């Protein structure tokens, strides 16, 4: 195989950080090259240099035997380098077709050839197995479907290099298989692909080679057959992680959250119970109604029938203020939209839901706020130079930790975690798992919605499976398998 691209001694610094330090490796034609590392290891920076969004301080990039000079987003795209970003880069008010061709419209003279765009877009969507009209506005798509549109965007032009940045973090298992089918198809066509993921098990399924970055340095590049998952984890973390899924929980106590025969728009007759000191997993496909149940239970969405009991008491005329007071917290799936005010600082985000508790006299006590926030920043290992840093500048994993800090501060006893580790690295995952475990150990009841089956099996005591808006099964985590859960998850879809 011939090399299509090579990085040669790339370095890049930002004020206060050396994001990339003398990084060199290459990409072959028709290769899936996985790049792994913790958040802040430099993966995204390297890819942004490749895409022309950033310029390297020193070093060269050789593409098809020639050095890329004066790289820019436009130049790299003209060369055939396409990015699929982790944070969705779609314009909600435009149609799928217009999004796919944004900045590279098919033109007839001055005018955009919308007919041709729609036609090409339909072909790309069909290749992805998506039966959606190209004229659908993106704002009407689920996050999962939006991600697939991003991939369609890259497919619609003849890409030579594709960069996937966390492509599967918002996809369900069936969608992931679909994605892998497409990746294999592209591989056969000779497209070189960088594949950034925190789900290490995926690398063994789809990757040819793997490169590990840590603190901006190139640690290793090797063929996937020559490495083990533990070897990669150690290379990423730079230390040994003894147990990814901690279990130090004690006895299970009284029911803390009871949902009885709850019915709403997207789910019917859902009943479940979470007890003191217990972590209960909720598995299912995207669209199975899991997040909707959580939102209804928390009082964000209305439900038609049924009841929700928190700590044994029925919550009537449900709203988030009441459920919070009753001791329940929801840590939402969509950090950006629902969990954080991105333009506010870590401190402000952390205290925003707990101003009353922190300031009983209704006067803001800045000192107490700062002390409390610092305590949680330490406890959760939040990597930041200051608690006054605006959350929009934090990495995904760190943002998720700030969301956690915000809800932990409230001293709730019932927690619903919706996709708690989506898009964050192994090290950060581990610390979030440890935290959940500690909460359960102290008697909290935790309901965890997750699309990652290893996480569901690793963390849960019991597991509910939802499909088509109904609870279709309940298992003890110790005597079930991924296969059993998947089978049920598809049963009603």
């Amino acid at each position, binding site marked *: 195989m011939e090399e299509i691209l090579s990085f040669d001694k790339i370095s890049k610094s930002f004020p206060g950080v050396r994001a990339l330090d003398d990084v060199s490796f290459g990409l072959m034609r028709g290769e899936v090259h996985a790049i792994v590392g913790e958040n802040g290891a430099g993966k995204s920076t390297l890819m942004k240099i490749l895409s022309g969004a950033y310029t390297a301080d020193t070093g060269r990039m050789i593409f098809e035997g020639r050095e890329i000079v004066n790289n*820019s987003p436009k130049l790299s795209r003209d060369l055939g380098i396409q990015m699929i970003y982790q944070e969705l*880069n779609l314009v*909600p*008010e*435009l149609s799928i077709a217009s999004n796919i061709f944004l900045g590279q419209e098919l033109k007839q003279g001055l*005018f*955009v050839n919308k007919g041709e765009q729609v036609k090409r877009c339909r072909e790309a969507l069909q290749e992805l197995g998506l039966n959606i009209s190209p004229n659908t506005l993106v704002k009407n798509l689920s996050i999962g479907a939006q991600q697939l549109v991003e991939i369609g965007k890259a497919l619609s032009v003849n890409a030579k290099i594709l960069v996937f940045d966390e492509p599967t973090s918002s996809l369900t298992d069936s969608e992931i298989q679909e994605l892998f089918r497409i990746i294999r198809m592209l591989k056969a066509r000779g497209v070189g692909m960088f594949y950034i993921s925190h789900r290490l098990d995926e690398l063994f399924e789809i990757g040819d080679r793997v490169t590990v970055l840590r603190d901006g340095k190139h640690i290793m590049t090797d063929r996937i057959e020559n490495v083990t998952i533990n070897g990669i984890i150690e290379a990423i973390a730079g230390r040994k992680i003894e147990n990814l899924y901690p279990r130090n929980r004690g006895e299970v106590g009284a029911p803390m959250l009871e949902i009885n025969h709850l019915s709403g728009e997207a789910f019917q007759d859902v009943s479940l119970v979470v007890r003191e000191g217990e972590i209960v997993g909720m598995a299912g496909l995207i669209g199975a109604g899991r997040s909707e149940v959580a939102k209804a239970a928390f009082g964000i969405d209305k439900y038609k029938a049924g009841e929700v009991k928190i700590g044994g008491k029925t919550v009537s005329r449900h709203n988030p203020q009441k459920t919070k007071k009753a001791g329940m917290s929801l840590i939402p799936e969509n950090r950006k939209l629902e969990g954080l005010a991105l333009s506010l600082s870590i401190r402000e985000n952390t205290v925003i839901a707990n101003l009353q508790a922190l300031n009983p006299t209704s006067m803001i006590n800045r000192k107490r706020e700062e002390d409390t926030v610092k305590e949680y920043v330490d406890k959760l290992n939040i990597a930041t130079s200051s608690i006054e840093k605006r959350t929009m500048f934090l990495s995904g994993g760190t943002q998720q930790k700030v969301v956690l800090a915000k809800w932990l501060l409230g001293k709730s006893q019932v927690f619903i975690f919706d996709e708690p580790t989506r898009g964050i690295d192994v090290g950060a995952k581990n610390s979030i798992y440890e935290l959940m475990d500690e909460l359960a150990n102290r008697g909290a009841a935790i309901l965890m919605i997750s699309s990652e089956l290893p996480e569901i099996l690793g963390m849960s005591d019991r597991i509910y499976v939802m499909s088509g808006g109904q609870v279709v099964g309940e298992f003890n985590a110790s005597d079930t398998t991924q296969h059993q859960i998947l089978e049920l998850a598809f049963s009603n*879809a």
Partner: protein
Amino acid sequence: MTSQKRSVRLSGLPNSTYIFIIVFVAASIIVPLFFTPGNISTLLTQACALMLLSTAMSVCLMMGGIDLSLGGVVSMTGVIMAMLLRGGAAPSLAILAGLLSGMVVGFLNGVVVTRMKVPSFIATFGMGGIAQSIANTLSEKRTVSWAAPTETNLLTLLGDNALTVQFGDSAAYTLSISVLLVLTIFIIAVVLLLFYRTTLGSNTYALGANEETARLAGISPNRWKTGIYVGAGFLAAIAGMVLMIRTNSLQPMIGENLEFQAVVAAVLGGNSLKGGKGSIPGAILGALTLFTVRNAMSLSGVNTSVVMVVIGCTLIVGMVINEVVQYYAAEKSKARAGIHAL
């Protein structure tokens, strides 16, 4: 299936459609002289300037900016054109000078917003003040008028009627489509064509939704933004020309507050002050809604202080209708998209 298709189209209409229809029908029923050819053609000609400004404003809002200099530019360009005419310049030259000066202000807006990173709200507000001061200084705050031309020229041509049809004896039954109205419709049609058929539209939405997305897609935010402000300045200058020709003289404060009316029309039409969404036809219908209310009120001789109450209520009702329609449209499309995505 067909009923579903129809309902999709209904929710795809610009936001202000419903309130416009309500107001228009109500005015036609309640006010006797409202729905007459003469009044409708007067109303449309009166609304020309605000329709042009609302078009400019809605594009600025969609790209995540705002242009509060529009009113000042209307005054300034009007004064420049009127004073050149008074000085005996050829009408075509006077108009050209007005249009150019409007575009220069737009360009300065663009430079200040994109290069100097001044928030558009402040940059354009300041620029509007400067433009209005130029208008006041040049005209010494007095109405500018010029000698009526002795022969047919561009000015008389533009001030004429394109089409006059008599439906009856009185003025109310004379339909007169002014050249200004035809010109305004033509210009708006060109803007719509550019917006929906070239990359202008999608780039505007992309800039408004997320500037970084636009940049990553290879769109140059600074260039497009500056271009849009230049276009807005051009449309404001056309509005200044329309007002000048319609009133056959120019009162230097004519543009005052027009920018806020344009914001109101645009927001009523579904534009968001946060950018990234909205529509030009919606903004234009918003402008027509404002003029319909005002026209109907003045025809029925209602006290001016009551007029403001009615306009205020119309706006609030209009926005509530928007919310309701949007809510149901979102619910429906969510349900549909959900089925397909799985």
